[in-house]
């Protein structure tokens, strides 16, 4: 095993890239869960974003439109979830699962004939001399636009939740939807908006996988990224900046194990490839066992039905 073949600054740079899809999906789901809704359909929305983004990019030749298409597809799929859970009072867990299954099937359907095609490439953002700084340059300044955008989204969500009226109301709805309703806030409307945002983010993350990270389309290209994103929301105790840390951590493990495989590590490939999932489980256990549910800041209304009885 030749560990010197692993370049640390490249490693960090590549982990930032690997983390983007999960990061986007996780921050989207964080907003949804802060509003009190558990949407397990993240995987379905991501894969739909992946294929629709891919198709849009190939059809128009523009990666930007590809991303827009991916976000739109994720949002559209999440609309089904919103309709079922907020208006038809369907069970959130079952509906989320249905969303994932449907998304996986529909995306494979749409993706017929797109296997092996190369999408229009997005280059890195030209940052001139900054990109040439040794070590830091590679890590920070040689990325495509989405990497920077994803960090910007985290900052925006954090600011909105902490400082804005809309963010306050969203948090209130997630904490105690009965009280929010009693105070006159439109619980259902707020939740639907949050769900759409979550869908758009998941779709965006999925599009990133098919347009930049891989970049091409195969069935099931997301490989469980949506589920990891859900776990990261728990890991982050529903705090936006911690989502960043969690996503980078997970991205780091993924990239590290790939590098180890490439460097000829003696550990069998399969064990390396299951390590990210095992570590996620470990993290979940630590988070949930630690200080009890109240301190882990789970929104108190998470997953509960809201039916205005007035």
């Amino acid at each position, binding site marked *: 095993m030749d560990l010197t073949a692993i370049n640390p600054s490249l490693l960090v740079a590549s982990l930032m890239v690997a983390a983007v899809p999960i990061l986007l999906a996780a921050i989207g789901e964080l907003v949804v869960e802060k509003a009190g809704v558990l949407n397990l359909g993240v995987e379905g929305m991501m894969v739909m974003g992946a294929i629709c983004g891919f198709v849009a990019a190939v059809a128009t030749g523009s990666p930007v439109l590809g991303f827009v298409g991916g976000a739109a597809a994720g949002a559209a799929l999440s609309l089904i979830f919103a*309709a079922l859970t907020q208006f038809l009072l369907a069970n959130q867990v079952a509906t989320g699962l249905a969303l994932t299954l449907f998304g996986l099937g529909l995306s494979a359907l749409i993706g017929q004939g797109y296997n092996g095609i190369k999408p229009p490439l997005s280059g890195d953002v030209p940052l001139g001399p900054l990109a040439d700084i040794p070590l830091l340059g590679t890590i920070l300044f040689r990325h495509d636009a989405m990497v920077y955008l994803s960090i910007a989204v985290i900052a925006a969500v954090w600011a909105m939740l902490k400082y804005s009226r809309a963010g306050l109301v969203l948090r209130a709805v997630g904490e105690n939807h009965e009280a929010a309703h009693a105070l006159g806030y439109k619980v259902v409307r707020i939740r639907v908006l949050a769900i759409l945002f979550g869908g758009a983010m998941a779709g965006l993350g999925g599009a990133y996988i098919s347009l930049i990270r891989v970049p091409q389309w195969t069935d099931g290209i997301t490989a469980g990224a949506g589920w990891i994103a859900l776990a990261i929301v728990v890991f982050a105790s529903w705090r936006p900046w911690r989502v960043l840390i969690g996503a980078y951590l997970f991205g780091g493990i993924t990239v590290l194990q790939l590098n180890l495989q490439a460097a000829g590590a003696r550990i*069998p490939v399969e064990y390396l490839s299951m390590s990210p999932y095992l570590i996620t489980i470990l993290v979940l256990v630590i988070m949930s066992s630690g200080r009890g549910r109240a301190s882990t800041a789970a929104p108190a209304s998470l997953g509960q039905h809201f039916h205005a009885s007035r």
Partner: protein
Amino acid sequence: MLRLEKRPNPSRGWTAATPVLAVALTMIAGGIMFAALGKNPFEAIRIIFWDPLFNPQFASYSRPQLLVKAAPLILIAVGLSLGFKAGIWNIGAEGQYIMGAIAGAGVGLAFYPAQGWYIFPLMVLAGGVGGWLWAMIPALLRTRFATSEILVSLLLVYVAQAILASMSLGLLRNPEGGGFPGSRNLAQYPAAANPELIGGSGVHWGVVAALVAVIATTILLQRHILGFQVRLAGQAPRAARFAGVSPNRLVVLCLGISGALAGLAGLFEVAGPAGQISIDFGSNYGFTAIIVAFLGRLNPIGILLAGLLMALTYIGGELSQFLLGLPAAAIQAFQGMLLFFLLALDLLSNYRIHWTARGGR
């Protein structure tokens, strides 16, 4: 505008009608989807639902396949439905299915090439235990650490798939297989095989097990106190505590039963229709079983019918692939749609819909 009003009594009529209605709506929506793909919708629906059963050209092949495909779905879904009824979400049945297969196959291959009546029963036991153990991980993590069983059981599916790959390439690899991944073919090893019991019917031990599971669960839910506790815990958790139900015990039991049944399904599959442990052994039965469980309204008889229906869509789907060039993914989307419609219609049994004039109080 629409207003929902909770019914004083759940409507029996609607509870029975919703699955039928959901199937009908899905056929319509699915037909639209097929038309969008450029296929004649009526022909597609006919090929999927009618031909496998009744078309003389295909039925003799397809009909036995119905039971083969339905058995694992029913077996797993029955186990899942117990947990779902109680609000315990085992999403990782696919992983338990795989681990049961690996455990059972491992035991069988350990005996190779010996012959003996005891080998197959031991494999069955190992399969059940393997699935049960894999489900105990999320169970214990939930009872001791309050960790979400949804996420843990799901993540373990990926771990199970990695273990499957490792086994196919390593420990369980067929030494006489010319270096190719995959275990010895168990279906050809008589002491370990799960053969067709009645020629041409597709019935194997897995089918028998599925039937037994349906009957046992029906009795459990209707006549046994555990079944009552499961229903109570899902409907009214405070009342369940009042009645003396221990939530932790229920979690361990429900996850354990569903894990064991999924493991059994895996064993019957690997020793029968699939034949060997290979990298692509997992065929998503564990996930499709979730749809079957809901489609059957978490009721064992319902699940029996729903499993048969789902199996029909699989076989019909293969047929349509063959005859119409319809992609396999279309069937998956179709199945997802079915679940959507069912969930959407579900509220009709518990709520009445009113049209009121705006501003009424």
